[in-house]
């Protein structure tokens, strides 16, 4: 199980990483990216089983990243992707879902919530 965590806040990446580790993923099995550009670069080089991304980031935001991931020719076209963001508006959730995210988590979240949302992808 290889996971990509994308967030411009290093604290958030570590918090998410901690929860993922609690689910049994080893530290060496998840990569981190601080923006969409770095994440997209990693996506082209590696194959991930799950992608967790923030929305508001410099250079390339999470929504653009999701659109890239879901674009034709992407090896991650069908990779489960979760948006973890402070954007709590209904319109934002709809926009993200239309772009192709599989699930949506509003910050602040608790570990059980993230575990619950990740569980279906971990069973596969």
């Amino acid at each position, binding site marked *: 199980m290889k996971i990509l965590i994308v967030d411009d806040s290093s*604290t958030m990446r570590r918090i998410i990483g901690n929860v993922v580790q609690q689910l049994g993923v080893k530290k060496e099995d998840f990569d981190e990216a601080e923006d969409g550009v770095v994440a997209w670069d990693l996506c082209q080089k590696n194959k991930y089983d799950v992608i967790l991304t923030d929305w508001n980031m410099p250079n390339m935001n999470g929504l653009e990243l999701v659109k890239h991931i879901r674009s034709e020719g992407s090896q991650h076209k069908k990779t489960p992707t979760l948006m973890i963001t402070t954007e709590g508006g209904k319109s934002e959730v709809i926009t993200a879902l239309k772009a192709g995210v599989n699930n949506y988590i509003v910050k602040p979240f608790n570990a059980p919530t993230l575990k619950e949302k990740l569980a279906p992808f971990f069973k596969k």
Partner: protein
Amino acid sequence: MSMTQEEIEALMNDTAVDAEENNVDDILADIDGIVDDSDDETNDESELNVDDILAGIDGIVDDSDEEETEDNTTEVNMDDILAGIDGIVDDEPETSSELDSQTTTEEAILPPSTSKEHKIVNQLNEVAEDTEEKASQIFDVLSYILDENEKVIKSNDVSREFIDSQIELLEKLSSKFPNIDIFQENIKKANEAKELTIQTTDIVNEENNKIFEAMEIMQYHDINRQKIERVMSVIKKLTQYLNGIFEDGSNKPEVQVAKHISGDGSETVNEEDIDNLISEFNIGN
């Protein structure tokens, strides 16, 4: 507001008149046959006059000597009490400086310089970056505690395994030598030690849960950073708007502005000043 010297003098004159009147009264009293039936009234009137005068002066508060003494005593007591409380800072000088600043209003309303430490967006950005760095350091500390706790749990597991093997051995020995009490006693002690390791692991696990909770709460750092960024964005847009509204779209070259225009104040010269300057420089004639 305190009384002015004029007001004090006015009051004193009034009292002097009363004193003169009293003298006249004394003289009159010395004269036989003169019956004064207006003494009380006169005194009352004069008292009323003084009260009226006092009432007519703005800001005069009746603070008789007795009350003043009481106030002073209270102040002293309050100072003593305040002095006994840690962390109380005497900010009276600031009040006086406030008053001073009121006298130099022009200086007081001058905005700070536009140096780096006064640039609002710059400062907010520094706050966001600094808290990010500090949050990361706090996370390091929490992660360290988690890692160390993991070591404690593993050591405990090793100890428990050893205790289990000792209990097993002691039970065998106890069943083989039922008359030797020491085996039974040690089985009891070994079970107590095992219980302690279980309790320690439970405590450490509970601590770990609290650390995970703390890590979750640290998400507010990211949320607050984004709130700061939202404020920064508004300020940046406002700056662009203000620049746009104040900018000169005429493309005319900047006009050199006059430094002192007639009527500005004492800085400007009059005809006489000009004549004086000319004669001083020996120009003209």
